[in-house]
């Protein structure tokens, strides 16, 4: 039938493989310049890892994707239509509805139980009854492998469980984009593997575009569909294989330095 074919066609056009396009980004911190003409493309529904040494700007870039920080100049275009650098308050709020962020320390509110933390987005924005909220929270907790700890405060959980609770909170609104700031930091190797498989599972199951800021090379090579390597104010983008086989000495230097 005509209408549904048209619909289908427009859907296909809308599903542009590039979810976010970063163009010519400039950002300086005091006298130090962090980004100088940075270009990068983030693919939809794929796991992109932003790699770089300390201070290279991984967290900075991630915060820009969340509109927590504005570049000095340049463009961050989402879905080919939303320019993040031009958004006003209402636009930012609208954009953030489709984004979830997992902060480095979890950033859970320490005065509330993890249940209340995960329920917060629903309580604030969704019109759900108490029973429905409870169900949603339990579902998302189950999907991250966190059961039986709902009533505990974040401080009463282990580091790994806190990360999972933070992930649960980020996922509860079913975002299209998930930003993870150093999800493996401070974890022992076994838990790192756990969080890795969790994130992979989330990506495969829910089809969420994931941008992970990390300096954990091993995990990166296991997880990433694409890597954005921040180097000298710019970025080199490619699949893990492409980057590993690159002739560019800066890239070699980075990997040689980080890999044992």
């Amino acid at each position: 039938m005509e209408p549904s074919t048209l619909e289908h066609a427009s859907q296909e056009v809308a599903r542009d493989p590039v979810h976010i396009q970063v163009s010519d980004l400039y950002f300086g911190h005091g006298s130090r310049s962090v980004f100088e003409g940075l270009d990068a493309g983030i693919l939809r529904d794929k796991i992109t890892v932003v790699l770089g040494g300390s201070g290279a700007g991984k967290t900075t870039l991630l915060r820009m994707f969340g509109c927590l920080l504005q570049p000095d100049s340049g463009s961050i275009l989402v879905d080919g239509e939303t320019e993040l650098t031009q958004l006003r308050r209402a636009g930012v709020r609208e954009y953030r509805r489709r984004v979830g962020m997992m902060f480095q320390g979890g950033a859970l509110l320490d005065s509330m139980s993890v249940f209340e933390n995960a329920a917060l987005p629903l309580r604030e924005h969704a019109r759900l009854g108490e029973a429905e909220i409870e169900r949603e929270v339990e579902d998302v907790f189950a999907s991250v492998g966190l059961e039986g700890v709902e009533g505990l405060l974040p401080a009463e959980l282990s580091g790994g469980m806190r990360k999972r609770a933070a992930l649960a909170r980020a996922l509860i609104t079913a975002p299209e984009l998930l930003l993870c700031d150093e999800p493996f930091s401070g974890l022992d190797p076994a838990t790192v593997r756990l969080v890795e498989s969790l994130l992979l599972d989330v990506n495969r199951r829910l089809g969420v575009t994931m941008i992970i800021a990390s300096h954990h090379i091993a995990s990166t090579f296991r997880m990433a569909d694409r890597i954005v390597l921040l180097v000298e104010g710019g970025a080199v983008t490619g699949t893990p294989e492409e980057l590993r086989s690159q002739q560019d000495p800066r890239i070699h230097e980075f990997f040689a330095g980080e890999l044992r």
Partner: protein
Amino acid sequence: MSAPIQRLGNGTTRFVGHLGHVASFAGQIGLALAQPPLRPRRILDEVYGIGVLSVSIVALSGLVVGAVLGLQGHNTLVRFGAEDSLGAVVGLMLIRELGPVLTGLLVTGRAGSAVAAEIGAMVVTEQLDGLRMMSVDPVDFVVKPKALAMVISMPLLAGLFTVTGILGGFLIGVLVVGGDGGLYLTSLESAVRFREDVGGSLMKAFVFGLLVALISTWRGFTCRPNAAGVSAATTSTVVIGSVAILIFDYFITALWRF
């Protein structure tokens, strides 16, 4: 030669800039107050943390200050043969000045610093950014309940301080120096006027509550995102809050005319 003058100009510019920043922050809080949700549960929890947990220090200090007033007052009044007016002296000093001012300083030190530290810690651990990413306004969620709780608690605590102070003076006046309890109370009641004295006292306590609410939340909110920043926010809250209370105390005293 011109360097100190330059510094003065620089400092003045920065000061005015700070004032502007505080004013706009106050505006944000005002806006948040005007919008739902009211968050009664959070306000209640904050009144517990700010008000209830300050009661012991306020009541104890009130009792002791009242006792000292009773003692000093008696020693002074005896020279004029006016010991029977002890109640009036203790009462007026507490109601007009010491009640609201000392309560203000105590609460700034105890609760004001705690509020600044709590909010500052939330900045450092990115909890406020976490709220922003969930499209929750940190001013509405975190600052508003704390500020409101401070404004509510301050007059209540000042009332408690004043009453325990009058009690302290009474105990000294009757038990220690052997005066007449009845005379204490009658001199108190005949000397104190509602509008000039009690009204002014409540106005001061309310204004001090507003000041500390604004200063403590602002310093916490704008603190540098590290441990040193939190520490600086806490100490500057106490310093700025205390000085502001004393300055506003003068102006309210001078302008409260009936």
